[in-house]
């Protein structure tokens, strides 16, 4: 049984259809990349999976560990081991990173019937995880993401992922806004957290992140549908040739190209 099973998923926002029949199956130990041009629905897919309330699912289903994911609240999904690394991590003045993470981790542990960590145990865990992703200690006692640089915010997402130890991580354009050094550090962090028991879905516009996080499967998302799937070499082709050839191959010809051809 796969970890995540997306079947014929249709979703939109305020009456506008964005996802128009997504099918996706993610197994344990796998890394999947979802690539596509701007506006293809990549972030919508990530948002629907994490439980963003602005999106309305109109058709289809999502099974996570065999259970109906869409029936769960965002916090229940997180407690069940789903993690979304935000494209735009939110600043939360007045709440320190430490306090926030401890509250999150203990909410997850409580849900799973595991004893909550006290302050000392939590600090020990945090120190261990900081080494894994090379996270600056001074950021721990600062309010969540407040005044962080773009790179620090993304690194904080991966640090949270390290502490919360998710079963399924969805990285939403984690590479956007990162320079090459920050990209490498973030990717190394993700690789170190990889295990046969968990899975990662990397949502990205560019191929460059996939040089560091090597996917087992690449899916191309265009106009709300996965139009092509393949191995890691597909990402290289996309990098070289762009997305238009896939549109043509899949018969999903852009409207303006179609009009030009009919003349």
């Amino acid at each position, binding site marked *: 049984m796969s970890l995540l099973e997306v079947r014929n998923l249709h979703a939109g926002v305020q009456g506008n259809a964005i996802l128009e029949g997504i099918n996706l199956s993610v197994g344990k130990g796998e890394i999947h990349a979802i690539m596509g041009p701007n506006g293809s629905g990549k972030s919508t897919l990530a948002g629907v999976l*994490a439980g963003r309330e602005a999106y309305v699912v109109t058709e289809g289903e999502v099974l996570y560990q065999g259970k109906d994911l869409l029936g769960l*609240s965002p916090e229940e999904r*997180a407690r069940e081991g789903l993690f979304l690394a935000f494209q735009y991590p*939110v600043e*939360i*003045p*007045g*709440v320190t990173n430490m306090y*926030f993470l401890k509250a*999150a981790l203990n909410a997850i542990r409580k849900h799973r019937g595991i004893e909550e960590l006290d302050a000392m145990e939590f600090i020990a865990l945090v120190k261990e995880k900081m080494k894994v992703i090379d996270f600056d200690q001074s950021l721990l006692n600062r309010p969540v993401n407040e005044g962080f640089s773009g790179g620090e915010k993304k690194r904080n997402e991966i640090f949270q992922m390290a502490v919360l130890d998710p079963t399924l991580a969805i990285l939403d354009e984690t590479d956007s806004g990162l320079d090459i050094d920050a990209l490498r550090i973030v990717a190394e962090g993700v690789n170190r957290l990889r295990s046969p028991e968990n899975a990662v879905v990397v949502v990205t516009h560019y191929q460059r992140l996939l040089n560091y996080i090597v996917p087992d499967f690449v899916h191309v998302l265009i106009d709300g549908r996965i139009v092509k799937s393949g191995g890691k070499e597909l990402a290289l082709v996309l990098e070289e040739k762009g997305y238009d050839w896939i549109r043509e191959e899949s018969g999903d010809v852009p409207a303006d190209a179609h009009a030009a051809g009919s003349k």
Partner: protein
Amino acid sequence: MNASTETKDWYAGRFARFEEGLNGASQSPLHALRRAGFAAFAAKGFPTTAEEEWRFTNVSPIAATQFQPAFDCEESGVTEPDLRPWSLGRTGGIVLVLINGHFSGGLSSIPASLPGVSIGSLAAALARDPALAERYLASARGGGDTFTALNTAFLVDGAFVRVDDGVTLQEPVHILSLASTGGTPLLVQPRHLVIAGKGARLSVVETYSGRGPGVYLTNAVTEIFVGEGGGVEHDTLQMENLNSYHVGTTLISLKGKASFTSNAVNLGGALVRNNVSALFQGEHAECTLNGLSVATGTQLVDNHTVIDHASPRCESHELYKAVLDGSARGVFNGKIFVRQDAQKTDAKQTNKTLLLSDEATIDTKPQLEIFADDVKCTHGATVGQLDEEQVFYLRARGIGATEARDLLTFAFATDVINRVHVDALREKLDVLLHTRLRQGRVNLEV
């Protein structure tokens, strides 16, 4: 006879009775001050919403009630256990207890001798040194304000704190004011005088609350004089009964290089007006005014601040926040005057309000009047609900929806609490806020 005349006649009667009880003391400079106070009160009466300063705050419930001035604290029946909920942490600290505005020696705790420090009741201080009245109390800049005038008219007692030049008082002075009421509506009017000498340092904490079922009006006036290079922190925690009224006026004068911080926390009362007014009387002085109001139900909390940059090269910072739920109403008016000579003034004012319900409202008005040209003045006001993107971020990490909202609300409020330097008060405020801000609401029952 209209309500206004009726009210004036009532207080004129109280004032006449008060004067009779003074016997020979009615010829003193202090009493001349009282008479001037009563004349000012009688001339103006209680304000109406037609007055700009009271546009959003209707005090007609106060004007319509015949409050009986409390002339002493005898027979209040208050004992030590009644004070415990309001104590700040450990015993043995400096605590001045005022019952119905009058000093209670038996309930207070004042160290026998502190070199260079004088702490006690204002009545005793005035008896020892009648010149205090003219030198300090007569200078009240709020003389034109009806409530300050009313306080002056019946001025008898309150707290007195003086720290001499160069002396640092480590221990905070806690002025615990308790109204103890039965059936008669009571007028509780403590008058506090705080004098910090040159280079003197001290902290004062005022707490206000009530005991018993009756209605009362606390109309407190605190005057603070900070000498050259001196430093004063002044914190207030107002937790009056929810059927009672509170008008608190703090008047601060700062000499050169002096620094002053006020943290005004308002949690109780049906109708609350907090006036804080600071005047720079020398260069290179610094003034910080912070405030937090948390209200629900039909509570009204009005904060009016004035910072008068009458001297050059002074700095002021201001942060007033409010968390409003139910049908609570908030008012913020922040005046900053920069006089013509006050070049190189640096003033910053921020007012932020979090509305937890659709019915809660705030009227906020920054009022900057700048007559100098080489100054830096900024102000900003925000009013809003919790940021849903922040709520989602916390939920996406496993934190429950209600808990996420409480965490964000607490973080919003604690921003002010963290600026309190008196540890015992900050810890108390922390606990109070945690109990008040639960389940996405402002809770009154603790």
